C-alpha cells in the first residue's frame, strides 16, 4: 500500500475525532442504567427534527446549483419514476437514516447522492462490492 494511502488513513482517523459530538462527558458504550428516558428520547429522535435545538446562526448565501447537484436531483427523480422509492422514503433516508453526524455535516445534495447509492444497495439492485469496485475503478482514472 502506498504511503499516500497511509497518510490518508491517519488523516481520516484525526478527522473523525473532530466530528464526534462535543458533549462534556464520556458518552461512548454506556451501561443500560446510564441511559434514562431523557437520553433515550434524545438519542432516538429523528435527527432532522431540529426545531428548538440550540445552535448558532448559519450564514445565508445565494448560490446556484452546481452541475453534479442537478444531475443528482435528476437521478433521484428517475429512481422515483422507476418505482425504486417514493419522495417520503427518500426524505426519511437522506434526512434521518444518515444519522446526525452526516445530516449536519454533509452538503444538502451530498446527502441526496449518498442516499441514492444506498437505496440501490439496500434494495439489491447493485451489490456493495459492485458499487465499491466501480468507485475504485473511476477513482483510478483521476490518479
Amino acid at each position, binding site marked *: 500500500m502506498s504511503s499516500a494511502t497511509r497518510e490518508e488513513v491517519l488523516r481520516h482517523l484525526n478527522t473523525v475525532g473532530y466530528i464526534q459530538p462535543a458533549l462534556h462527558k464520556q458518552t461512548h458504550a454506556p451501561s443500560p442504567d446510564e441511559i434514562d428516558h431523557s437520553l433515550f428520547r434524545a438519542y432516538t429522535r*429523528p435527527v432532522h*427534527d431540529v*426545531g*428548538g435545538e440550540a445552535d448558532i446562526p448559519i450564514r445565508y448565501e445565494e448560490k446556484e446549483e452546481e452541475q453534479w447537484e442537478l444531475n443528482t436531483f435528476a437521478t433521484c427523480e428517475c429512481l422515483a419514476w422507476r*418505482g*425504486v422509492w*417514493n419522495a417520503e*422514503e427518500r426524505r426519511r433516508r437522506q434526512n434521518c437514516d444518515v444519522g446526525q453526524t452526516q445530516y449536519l455535516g454533509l452538503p444538502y445534495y451530498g446527502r441526496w447522492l449518498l442516499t441514492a447509492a444506498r437505496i440501490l444497495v439496500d434494495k*439489491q439492485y447493485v451489490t456493495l462490492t459492485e458499487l465499491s469496485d466501480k468507485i475504485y475503478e473511476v477513482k483510478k482514472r483521476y490518479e
Partner: protein
Amino acid sequence: MSKIQHDRTHHAKMATGVGDPQCFKGKAGKPKFKIGDRVSVKDLPDIFYTRTMVYTRGAVGEVVELVYESPPAEDESWDNTDKSEWFYSVVFKQNDLWPEYSDEFSNDSLETELSERWLESA
C-alpha cells in the same frame, strides 16, 4: 437468502395523471375534526421517522383547513400506502410553543400540517 421482490411501479401507477396526494382522495373516510376545532398534538413515539415537529407536542392549536388525504409520513416512508388519513393545517400561537417568546409579539402564529393520528380534541 433470496432477493426481496420490490413492486417498482405501483406508486407511479396510482399517481400518474392524478398526482400525489390527489391519488389518495376519498381513502381516509370521515374526518375527525373540522375547521375551527381546538386540537392538541399527541406525544406519540417518534423513533425512526416522523415529520411532526417535537416542539408542537402537547401544544393546543386551531384547525384552519382540511388539506388532503394521504398515508401518514411514518408509513409512506416505508412505502406502506394502504391506509390514508386526513391532514389538517393547524395554527398555533408562537407564545404557546416557545416559553421565552416575547409578549410584545403575542399575535405571532405558526401554521403547519399534521396528520390525524397526531391530534386529539382540546
